[in-house]
């Protein structure tokens, strides 16, 4: 397909990898922020093509993974209310809360439906006027405009039975939090291409400047990723902490102004807790008071839930790029995609699940390039 196939040319990727080998003269640690990028990098083995002095660490950009346990428990409580149709993206169904997941709720009789788009949930609300329809609105700035628009459309159409449980998260505050941690290893970022298609680059410049880290907003195909890495290495070698845009075919300087307008109309910035990481100031969106009738947290009494965290795992350190999945003794043994113990295993875009899907749990310590490096 156009705009996909030409960015998967193995020969072209190899040329760029050779350039990275030539130009990287010292060790560099680069974090790809977005879970979609992690998924591509591991799927195509891009991290294993790179020279040993260019290390990729995987960021917290998997919204399914970082949705807090409180929010998951709230979702489960709402889904279990009589008369509710609970609509969610498919990958949230398997995420464990304090007790079980949404599949368990469904087995117990709850009406949990998988939707591809929030518009599908709106349609379900129109078709079921006597039922309460709740959409589980998760995702980064990429997804948030779709939720905002659906909430606004529900109000415009006077749909009294539609609401959204909103747990949207914002990328730049998470990057700031990672860079500010005392054990931070990250010296540069591949910026999240699809998030920036909405937000543009404005919020990233102050981060690059304050922490002296280059940020190259990058796409998702192999050629995009390798070009993003080459451009990042060039900026690191030149000690030039600027923001560049590798993904110009979809990302404009100021993003998508229509999408940003909808975000601003319906949501306001709030502090949010990230699973595995903890609370990050200004890192989420919540529904503005003007739209509280469409806010599931207002319509359902679910504020007082006390979550219980599952057993210890390294997901918090993995989400901050301090550890790799293969450093965790539970990885691939007690913790698998079927029985995930922590945030990074619950979604296919989590670093642990991506490693597992590529068979990396079968390869033990000491046999791969990234594990030959000293334990960080």
């Amino acid at each position, binding site marked *: 397909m156009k705009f996909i196939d030409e960015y998967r040319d193995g020969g072209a990727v190899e040329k760029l990898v050779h350039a990275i080998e030539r130009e990287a003269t010292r060790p560099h640690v680069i974090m790809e922020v977005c879970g979609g990028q992690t998924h591509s990098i591991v799927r195509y083995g891009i991290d294993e093509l790179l020279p040993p002095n260019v290390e990729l660490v995987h960021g917290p950009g*998997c919204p399914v993974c970082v949705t807090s346990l409180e929010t998951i428990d709230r979702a489960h409580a709402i889904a279990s209310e009589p008369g509710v149709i609970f609509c969610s993206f498919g990958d949230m169904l398997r995420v464990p809360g304090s007790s079980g997941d949404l599949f368990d709720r469904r087995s117990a009789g709850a009406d949990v439906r998988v939707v591809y788009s929030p518009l599908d949930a709106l349609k379900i609300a129109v078709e079921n006027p006597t039922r309460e329809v709740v959409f589980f609105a998760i995702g980064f700035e990429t997804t948030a405009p779709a939720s905002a628009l659906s909430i606004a459309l529900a109000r415009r159409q006077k749909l009294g039975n539609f609401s959204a449980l909103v747990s949207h998260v914002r990328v730049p505050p998470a990057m700031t939090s990672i860079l500010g941690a005392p054990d931070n290893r990250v010296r540069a970022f591949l910026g999240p291409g699809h998030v920036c298609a909405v937000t543009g680059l404005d919020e990233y410049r102050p981060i690059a400047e304050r922490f002296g880290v280059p940020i190259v907003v990058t796409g998702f195909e192999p050629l995009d990723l390798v070009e993003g890495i080459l451009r990042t290495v060039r900026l690191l070698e030149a000690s030039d902490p600027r923001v560049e845009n590798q993904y110009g075919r979809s990302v404009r300087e100021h993003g*998508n102004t229509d999408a940003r307008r909808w975000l601003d109309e319906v949501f306001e910035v709030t502090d949010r807790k990230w699973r595995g990481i903890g609370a990050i100031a200004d890192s989420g969106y919540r529904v503005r008071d003007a739209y509280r009738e469409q806010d599931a947290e207002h319509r359902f009494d679910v504020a007082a839930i006390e979550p219980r965290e599952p057993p210890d795992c390294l997901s918090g350190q993995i989400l901050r790029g301090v550890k790799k999945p293969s450093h965790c003794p539970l990885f691939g043994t007690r913790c698998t995609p079927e029985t995930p113990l922590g945030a990074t295993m619950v979604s296919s875009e989590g670093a642990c699940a991506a490693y597992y899907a590529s068979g990396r749990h079968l390869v033990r310590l000491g046999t791969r390039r990234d594990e030959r490096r000293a334990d960080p």
Partner: protein
Amino acid sequence: MCLAVPGRVTEVFDDDGIRMGKVSFGGVARKICFECVPDARPGEYVLVHVGFALSRIDEQEAARVFELLRELEPESEFVEEAS
């Protein structure tokens, strides 16, 4: 989760006051909301995420990745094999 897929716009229309349209993904058509990319026209490519057009794909910018490749190796035969 932030997966977004490029597709070709085949139709844009107003549906009960909402800007909607159809996008073809390698021949598979889907109804898509165009409220965030209201000025997209049939024949153009857009990036689609959870049923919403998110961005128009800029053809000139799309070719720039290949410029970097040519710059690395001037005689290289890398050309955009767009179909």
